[in-house]
């Protein structure tokens, strides 16, 4: 069943990507190549893709996801202006370091989303994560090297949303 879902998804993406933009004719060879590639992908890789299917059909989770997207983009834009400021400032006001933060998220997709959100937002870049729920984060402007305080600054604002979406 899972293989079928991933097959349909992969094939859909293939069709959208090869959708002819000039003359509107669909080439049979392209479709056949896409079918073969989708079968290979869904058979080989269905195990490494996320296992938590229930999150994609629950309306409450989708609602929280839609709330999360604008919040996330607000922080992404803020992060970018911050990095641009540090890159262009003649004295380069950076104070880098690697700190450790704690996360309460348990599911693989939740932790992945948290790590990616951290990487794309204010001055932080996830380096590694441990099995017992700690993340190592490179921070361009270290405000605190204490685990609790760093968690407050970096992880808290996303965890609240991600818990509602993925757990």
């Amino acid at each position, binding site marked *: 069943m899972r293989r079928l879902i991933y097959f349909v998804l992969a094939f859909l993406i293939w069709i959208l990507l090869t959708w002819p933009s000039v003359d509107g004719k669909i080439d049979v060879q392209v479709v056949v190549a896409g079918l073969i590639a989708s079968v290979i992908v869904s058979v080989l890789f269905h195990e490494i893709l996320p296992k938590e299917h229930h999150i994609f059909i629950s309306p409450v989770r989708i609602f929280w996801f839609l709330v999360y997207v604008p919040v996330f983009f607000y922080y992404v834009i803020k992060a*970018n202006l911050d990095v641009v400021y540090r890159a262009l400032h003649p004295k380069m006001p950076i104070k880098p*370091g690697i700190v450790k933060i704690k996360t309460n998220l348990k599911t693989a997709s939740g932790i992945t989303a948290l790590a990616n959100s951290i990487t794309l937002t204010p001055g932080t870049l996830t380096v*590694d994560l441990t099995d017992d729920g700690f993340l190592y984060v490179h921070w361009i402007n270290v405000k605190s090297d204490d685990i609790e305080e760093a968690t407050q600054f970096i992880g808290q604002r996303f965890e609240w949303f991600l818990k509602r979406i993925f757990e």
Partner: protein
Amino acid sequence: MTDIIGYIMMVIGVMFDIFGCIGLVRFPDVYNRLQAATKCVTLGTVVLLVGVALICGWGPMSAKAIICAGFILITSPTAAHAIAKGAYASGVELWEKSVVDKYAEEIEK
């Protein structure tokens, strides 16, 4: 109207890409450079692609642009984790003025 918004978004995207490249050159070590490369270039390229989608309107071109934007949003931070971890594992040191390195304890364990 959508054309004008699309062009403005493309200009903003290219500007973020340029600032990201300036950061890439100016920052002192691998980890700080990755910060500039992942954040500015990701947002710049996504904004640029959304601008392209707005200008092209509803059709094949904008479908491709939106799919590419989604892939960049997912893969760019993932690649940054891989590079940062790989750099640390192969012994690239932090900038000498870095204030804290908690990851060193983890590696020693």
